[in-house]
């Protein structure tokens, strides 16, 4: 039994031209049982910055609380909105403090810089190693399937509509093959003047 697939869940983020898309499934399980069908793994940290937390659900909740704590202190001290790159560093340092005795959750940060609106995506392992590819990142039990299908669907310079379709279709493909994720998917499309939250029709098993 792996602790990272105990509760299940998958998150994908893709970067386009001036926009990012972040998608999550909705299943919460206890190994083979499904316990809840409305648990999003993506959380809003600030207007344009979202965080995905996969892995063991209890640790994901704890780490989310700690991220909010650090982000609130940062925004109070600096008196400005946090940038996604800075948030990623904060989360990485938080994870690395627990280098021996880690939280069993892999964080993913996706968002737009609050000033320049440049897209930023990154994913980390459980101890905070940041990977910043320019195209897409995936975490969770369905990450392997997502990496394969996103290599085909992602192109450079997609606009927000194309990016939404690519992200949604990649997520649906992964849900076909990952038993620990599913029960629907929700896709957030973040552009400089709005955030679209779409729940897409998916197989409910």
């Amino acid at each position, binding site marked *: *039994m792996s602790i990272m697939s105990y509760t299940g869940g998958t998150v994908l983020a893709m970067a386009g031209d001036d926009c990012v898309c972040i998608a999550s499934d909705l299943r919460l399980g206890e190994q083979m049982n499904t316990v809840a069908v409305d648990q999003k793994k993506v959380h809003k940290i600030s207007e344009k910055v979202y965080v995905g937390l996969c892995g063991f659900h209890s640790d994901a909740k704890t780490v989310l609380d700690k991220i909010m704590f650090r982000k609130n202190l940062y925004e109070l001290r600096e008196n400005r909105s946090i940038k996604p790159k800075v948030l990623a560093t904060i989360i990485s340092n938080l994870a690395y403090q627990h280098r021996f005795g880690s939280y069993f959750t892999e964080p993913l940060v996706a968002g737009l810089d609050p000033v320049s609106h440049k897209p930023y995506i990154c994913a980390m392992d459980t101890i905070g*190693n940041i990977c910043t590819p320019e195209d897409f990142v995936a975490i969770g039990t369905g990450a392997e399937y997502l990496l394969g299908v996103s290599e085909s669907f992602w192109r450079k310079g997609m606009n927000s509509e194309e990016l939404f379709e690519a992200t949604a279709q990649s997520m649906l493909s992964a849900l076909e093959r990952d038993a620990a994720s599913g029960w629907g998917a929700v896709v957030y499309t973040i552009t400089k003047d709005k955030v679209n939250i779409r729940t897409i*029709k998916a197989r409910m098993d």
Partner: protein
Amino acid sequence: MAALDAFQNGVLQCEVEPNAFDFSNCTRNCALARMGTAPPRLNSTGTTIVAVTYKDGVVMGADSRATAGNIIADKHCEKVHYITDSIYACGAGTAADLDQVTKMLSSSLRLLELNTGRKARVITALRIAKQHLFNYMGYVGAYLLIGGVDPTGPYLFDVSANGTTMARPFAAQGSGSYAAITVLEKDWKIGMTEEEASKLVQDALHAGMHGDNASGNSLNLVVITPEKTIFRGPIVPDFCNKPEPIESDYKFKSGATTVLKKKEIKYDIVESMDMH
């Protein structure tokens, strides 16, 4: 009140002591391991890293693949880490440990430069790294090649996770080092020029990228001389390119995905001044 304080101190331990490791999850994690749960895979820079000293300076290079088990987690990972303007470190081992150790080295040396008013020396970087890594008995998995030029000359050192250090004229580390070292052993000679040294490092990296499954994608080089430091990368060797471009584009029509519920949050854009 005392009980509340103790609880808060426990929960906020890592906020209170930002520079220390927090071991509060260890009991739980050990219990889980005894129950038979597999620990999560950590990103490792499987890697080939190579460094060579030549007549005036040092050439260092690394590939750019980071793996989590057999999955390539990052195709363009930075393994040639900046320490100071004339000291760089190539890292193999656990990726998070490498990032944090090299950041720590960089800040410590910068503070030392500011406090002493002198350019930092490569041997200082080595000693700080060695003392940190030995302290953790090899559990901080960082295998570094630290190279650079300081006022006393060019140096190349090799640091292992358990604290062993060695001074070398040329070195290779990482899983691809078995392939890379063969090229270095054959072709390294005393008094090479910068072009020869650069070519030797690239050939050694190519050997590692061919032979080792955990190395590949592209390579980064840094050439350090007393006058300047040139960072070259990413260089993609011919054999690392996709053989043909993808034939058909997967272009989905708008509306291809059925949307059940939609919510839109609109933000007003307030003109902001760029303060950079």
